[in-house]
């Protein structure tokens, strides 16, 4: 009951003209950016982040969340119409979404993906309300050693998604930590890794890293195919975007089931939207009575990953908001932006800034509705963006990125840095080095070192403090498991294959 009261006051705080305006603008911009192939929610938030710097914290957070789920809604548009996923999480939507539009059912495909996204988002927001406060209360018990171990776990889990990419993931994490170390050490005042450049003394702004790697890096790697990708034609004329009752009934249970899956995958650090969607798709394919229809335009095969995708994105906000430790690249970017606004998400957010926290949660309900409106009645209008030639779009994105960077410090030194990180991001993409561990490490790196050193001060330099409390030990085990798991499952698969042969 107490929570319902808080939620009601959250709605009251959230329903201001300014907030609602930004909620709509954020959702629309997010949807558009999410639609563009190659630009996912992370890039979207990174590019639009500077917009939020002049806002009040609650408005800023509402805007960023709106961009986030707007991008999640929008990601599937280009999967369905072009067979080009707008972001990694929309890959699973290509499997059945594109065949549907090929069969002339683009309207139904667009409608069901928005409906599934809406339902997934709505149900998981309700779950968020139920879970957030208990988790935040529990997290109040965390001291520096627990936080250090928690960050280790979040980083390890993000880096260790697959066995193949694990070493590269961990390397990318190390690089992120290195970037986070640049500048004056806040505890001792020692100047580190500035190479004598004064501008680096205050450290490298993570916004610069983020915009460089996700904004410029993505544009650079899209340059590789810009001439060959031109031939695609987008369908811009649609009939009524809606589905039949019969189709809806068929999708109802799959959407419900996969919402739950998506939510839990989202809460766990590391896994993220892509995995949630693929899991959802495979689950439904296995459960289905006609698995052969999957991949040929089966509406359930589109509804399931879409619901999971949005449930996952809401779930991913839980560790970020309640613990202050993000579990994915996108939430790391949001956390970074919040820190710039002087707001430290974490257990104290719900105590000291309860009004902000609940206003944001309330806005998540509203945002879900706004996104559904944008994506169903207005869908035919918005997909026209996909018809804008990418050759014009990408230069504009570069310009947006640079203007955004400029507004952080009003210094052109950052331009050079952002270009360097852009080149870095490009090569990371080219050599298949995952970028999210790097972003995560850049954002939490400073905090992580501080909590490590505070722990050591508490124990007079003995490392044993990191393994003393039960919470620490559980987190350590989780860290070890998340690194060992990919190896274990690969080994099990190899054994199975050997037994079969």
């Amino acid at each position, binding site marked *: 009951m107490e929570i319902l009261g808080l939620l009601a006051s959250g709605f009251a705080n959230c329903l201001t003209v300014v907030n609602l305006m930004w909620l709509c603008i954020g959702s629309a911009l997010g949807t558009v950016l999410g639609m563009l192939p190659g630009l996912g929610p992370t890039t979207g938030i990174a590019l639009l982040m500077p917009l939020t710097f002049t806002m009040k914290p609650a408005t800023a957070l509402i805007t960023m969340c709106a961009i986030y789920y707007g991008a999640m809604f929008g990601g599937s548009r280009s999967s369905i119409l072009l067979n080009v996923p707008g972001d990694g999480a929309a890959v699973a939507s290509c499997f059945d979404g594109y065949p549907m539009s090929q069969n002339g059912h683009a309207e139904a495909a667009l409608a069901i993906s928005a409906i599934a996204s809406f339902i997934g988002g709505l149900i998981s927001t309700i779950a968020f309300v139920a879970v957030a406060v208990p988790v935040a209360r529990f997290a109040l018990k965390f001291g520096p050693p627990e936080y250090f171990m928690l960050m280790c776990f979040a980083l390890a889990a993000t880096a260790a998604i697959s066995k193949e990419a694990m070493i590269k993931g961990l390397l990318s994490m*190390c690089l992120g930590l290195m970037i986070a170390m640049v500048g004056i050490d806040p505890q001792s005042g*020692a100047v580190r890794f500035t190479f004598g450049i004064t501008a680096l003394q205050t450290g490298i702004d993570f916004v610069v890293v983020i915009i460089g790697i996700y904004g410029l890096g993505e544009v650079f790697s899209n340059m590789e195919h810009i001439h060959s990708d031109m031939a695609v034609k987008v369908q811009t004329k649609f009939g009524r975007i809606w589905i039949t009752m019969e189709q809806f009934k068929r999708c109802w249970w799959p959407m419900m089931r996969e919402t739950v899956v998506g939510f839990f995958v989202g809460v766990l650090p590391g896994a993220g939207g892509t995995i949630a969607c693929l899991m959802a798709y495979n689950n439904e394919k296995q459960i289905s009575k006609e698995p052969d229809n999957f991949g040929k335009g089966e509406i359930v095969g589109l509804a399931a990953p879409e619901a999971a995708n949005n449930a996952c994105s809401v779930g991913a906000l839980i560790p970020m908001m309640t613990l202050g430790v993000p579990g994915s690249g996108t939430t790391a970017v949001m956390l970074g932006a919040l820190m710039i606004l002087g707001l430290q998400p974490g257990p104290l957010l719900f105590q000291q800034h309860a009004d902000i926290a609940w206003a944001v949660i309330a806005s998540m309900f509203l945002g879900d509705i706004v996104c559904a409106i944008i994506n169903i009645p207005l869908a035919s209008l918005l997909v026209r963006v996909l018809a804008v030639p990418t050759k014009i779009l990408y230069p504009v994105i570069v310009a947006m990125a640079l*203007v955004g960077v400029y507004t952080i410090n009003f210094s052109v030194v950052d331009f050079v840095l952002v270009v360097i990180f852009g080149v870095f991001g490009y090569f990371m993409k080219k050599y298949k080095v995952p970028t999210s561990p790097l972003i995560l490490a850049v954002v939490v790196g400073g905090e992580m070192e501080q909590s490590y050193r505070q722990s050591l001060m508490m124990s007079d330099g003995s490392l044993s403090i990191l393994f003393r409390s039960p919470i620490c030990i559980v987190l350590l085990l989780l860290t070890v498991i998340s690194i060992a798991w990919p190896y274990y499952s690969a080994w099990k698969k190899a054994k199975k294959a050997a037994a079969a042969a």
Partner: protein
Amino acid sequence: MLVGIFSAVFGIAYAVMSWNLPNASIGNPMAPKYFPLGVGVLATILAILLIMQGLRKGPAKAGKKVPDKGYWVLIVGLIVCCLVYAFILEKVGFIISTIVFLLGMLFLVNGVKGWLSNIATALIYSVGVWYIFEKVFQLSLP
């Protein structure tokens, strides 16, 4: 493989640099060093593992999608544009430099044929952004 060698060099350099950091004047003189040192060592170990993995598997197979010819001209061109922009922004002001910057990029990427849309995009974008930042956000651009 390439990533491994690059990171190995980087990791070792970083660890050495951490070791040579100036000692802290207050508290434990080594305190600001431990963490970066640990990261550097970890990066080096990982890089060596990656190289070993690469040696065992042999050269990686090429990706499915072959990049367009001359793509790196575009990338280098964009980088040059950004650096030029950095150089001129505070000298000639936001609107002019942004128009020049966008025109440069658009002619590079979109080609000379689309000159009309190039010029239109550059003008609308530059003036539009300037207006939003100056009037709506009250931020002053050079």
